[in-house]
Every structure is written in C-alpha cells, then in structure tokens.
C-alpha cells in the first residue's frame, strides 16, 4: 500500500473530529458553562470552609499560612462545666475568623495543620467578586460553605490511610 501523504492524513483528522463533534453520541469536549457545569473532583481545592464549633483559636493555621492571609481574633471566656457541679472551663471564644481570598494561594496547609478538624476544602468555585476587597470573607460566610463540603472519598485498594468523616 502506498504511503498516504501527511497532508491528506491531517485533513482526515480534522474531518473525523468534526463528525465526532456533530454525532449525538460524541458531542463536543466543552460544556456550555453557565447553563451546564462540570462536577469538580471531591478533593478539589475550591474554597476553605470553617466548622466554627471545632475551632479552638489555636492560631496554627494562621501561623503556618505561607502568605499569612488568615485573621483570627479571640478572647478567653468561661464555658459551663462539662459535669454538673464542676468548675467552669476556660475556653477561647472565636470573635473573628477571616480568610483573605485575594491573598490565599489555595495551598491547603491550613486545612492540613488544623488539629481539631475545623477547616475543610469545598469544591465550590463560584465566589468571584467585582472588587478585590470583597474577597475577604468572615467566619459566617466560611461557615455557609460547610454545607458544600463533600464526604471524604474512600481510598484506593492497598491503602493504610484512615478514613475521615466530615462533622456536620
């Protein structure tokens, strides 16, 4: 069989792609974004959500953050005792927890270092703002994103990592 010239083969590639795009079974590789949305992976680092009850204001996340974009303010207060008749406990009450998403590099170190499971990644990605200053989100907004956090996926076979649960 004589060799097909490369130029003819190239025409074949583009024509094949066109047919494939137009076939109902094929379809284009793109999605029409505002109308249909792609489902990001469960681990996708979209936005950081805060489970406020778990936060003890230990400041680890704020210190480990490579560009220091987490702002935490807290004061000491007395909480009712755990057992009846016990002494009141001294706890840190979280006044302010804010992440400046205009500075955040989405590296995930804060989520990783959090010892009390208070920070989680959510695949939510539609939180753009018109003004860059509006990207500083306080704890209330961060708490709302907690609803969009998916459950942790099970691991691939052969893994010894422990499965984790998302507090609700």
């Amino acid at each position, binding site marked *: 069989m004589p060799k097909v010239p490369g130029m003819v083969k190239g025409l074949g590639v*583009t024509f094949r792609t066109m047919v494939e*795009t137009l076939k109902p079974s094929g379809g284009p590789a793109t999605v029409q974004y505002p109308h249909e949305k792609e489902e990001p992976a469960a681990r996708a680092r979209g936005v950081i959500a805060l489970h406020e009850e778990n936060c003890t204001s230990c400041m680890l996340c704020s210190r480990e953050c490579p560009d220091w974009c987490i702002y935490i303010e807290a004061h000491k207060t007395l909480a009712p005792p755990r057992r009846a008749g016990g002494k009141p406990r001294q706890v840190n009450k979280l006044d302010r927890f804010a992440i400046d998403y205009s500075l955040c590099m989405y590296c995930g170190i804060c989520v990783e270092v959090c010892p009390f499971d208070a920070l989680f990644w959510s695949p939510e990605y539609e939180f753009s703002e018109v003004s860059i200053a509006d990207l500083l989100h306080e704890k209330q907004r961060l708490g709302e994103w907690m609803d969009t956090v998916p459950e942790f996926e099970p691991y691939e076979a052969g893994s010894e990592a422990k499965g984790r649960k998302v507090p609700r």
Partner: protein
Amino acid sequence: MNELVLAIELAFWQQTLIKVLVAAVLVPTTALIFGIVFLFKVMSWMQSRMGPQEAGPRGLLQLLADGAKFLQKEDIIPDKADRFVFKAAPVVVLASTFLIYVILPAGPDLIISDLPTGIFFAMAVSSLSVIGVLMAGWSSSNKYALMGGLRAGGQLIAYELPLILAVVGVVIQAGSLSMQDIVLAQANGSMLGFSGVGLPFLITQILGFGIFMVAIQAELTQPPFDMPVAESEVVGGFHVEYTGFRFLFFFLAEFATAFAFAAIAATLFLGGWYVPGIDPDSMLANVVGPIALFVKIMVVAFLIFWFRFTYPRFREDQLQRFAWKYLIPLALVNITITGALVVAL
C-alpha cells in the same frame, strides 16, 4: 441581455440603482454567512467545540453582535500615519471585492453585468486589493504592518499568475471569457456522449481546479499561506494598526472575497447555477440557479476552510518557491495539454 429586469420596463438609472443596492446588500451578507458558518461553526466543530451559543438561536447572530461592537470602537489613527492613505486603504480593499461581484452569474438573467471579458475582469480587479494591502502596510508607520504588507504584496503577486493560468484552461475549453458562456458551455457539454448532466469542467480540468484552489487559498491569505497576517511572526500584519469599523472593512473584504472566489471556482469548474434537468433558458433556472450556485459555493468554501483549519503555515521563501517552481509550470503544462486536446478533438 437582462430580460428579467427589462420585462418590468425600468429606466437605465433605476436598473443601475437596483443593481448597486443588491451588490451593497449582497457583499456584507455573504461575508456574514461565511464568517458564521465557517469561521465560527465549522472551525469549532473541527476543534471539538460548539462555537458561539449565546447571541441569537444557537449563536447564529454572534457576528452581527461583533460587527456592532466594532462600530462602537474608537477609531484610532497612529500619530505618524499617513492619514489619507491610512483611511483609503480599507476602502480600496473592499472596493476590489465589490467589483468582483459584478460578473458573478446566479442564473441566466441574474447577473449584474455580463461582460464579454468577465473572468478576465474578475482576475484584474481582484488584484487591486494588493494595492490596498500595501497602502495599509505602508501608511500605518508600523514595522510589523510594513513587513506584513510587503509579504502580502509579494504573495498576492506571486499567486496571481497560477490563478490566471489555471483559469486559462477553462477559457480554452469554453471558448469564451464571459461567465455566462462558460456556464452554458458546461451545461451543453456532454460526458463521453452522455449529455444528461452536462460537463462540469472539474472533470476535464482537475489539475486546473487544484491549482486554482491552492492559488485562491494564497490570495485570501489563509493558512497554510497566512504569513502576511501571522500573529506569531508579524503580530497580525498589515491591519495591526486598524481598529473599529476600518478593521471591520478588512474583515468584510476578507470573507466577501472568499465568497467571490468560491463563486468563481463554482462557476468555472462546477457548472455554476446550472442544475442538470432544468433547461438553462427557462424561467425556472432563474429561481433554482441561485440556490444551486449557493450550494456549490458552500462545497468549495468548505474545502477552502478545511485546509485553513488543518495546516500549519509555510515560510515566506517556501511559499515563493512553491508558486514559481511548481504551480506555474504545472499550470503551463495544463494549458498546453488542454490546448492540444481542444485542437486535436
């Protein structure tokens, strides 16, 4: 000549006015059709996308929206530009496109003017656009524009020759330079004694058709011959300094010229408005003719744009070598063979 128009008994100035209006509407419309169907849709499909979807049904009005956007843009003229030439260049380019439309036949009576030297006229006015391109490149006072303009000049002149030589084969076979006569020659021809479908010159002039297609690809400065407008080399070439409606002129001219050349190719090689089975003298041909021509144009244009979306571009010296060393000798061989056969048979 123009029985359809004459039948309504119009004065000469009224006829002329109608013809001018038709051409004025036709040129932007054809450019729009080409832009939407090929630049937006076919290109998208070949690249595994859907193309514009938002403006109008299935995004079909996107180009109108873009055109409106161009009209709103600020009209910027560079400080050091030669203002008169800068302003005149897009008009010259568009004018050469308008002039080609004069001789395109869409039916036995549907032609703006059936010049006895129709195809010769088309080739002559199409090369006028070189002047406009050179004017644009020179007057912009921009090194990229100048480089692109000179590249375009060299390229368009080099490919003018194979274009004309490819046409000569058809002209020899038809025995006329008139577009209508060329169509009729194909309609009345016979293929190996069988005269049912006429004789599209594609069959006898397959070599000429190939040369013609390559040459118009170069004339339109489309890939693989798009060095004059290569973004990665000369940042858009001769129209780099143009904005707003002046850029729109170049855009319209590009696609309207593509339409015109596709129409010439369809007329010369595919039988133009002639449909097998319909008497070329009947009134029906005036109705079916434009549709048939349009379908044929679309087929030719699909080929043009298919090449455009598939190939990488040549280098400037390779382009010239290709024209002078391969295309022109091939075209001359084609003329010789055609001439010899016409005389012998």
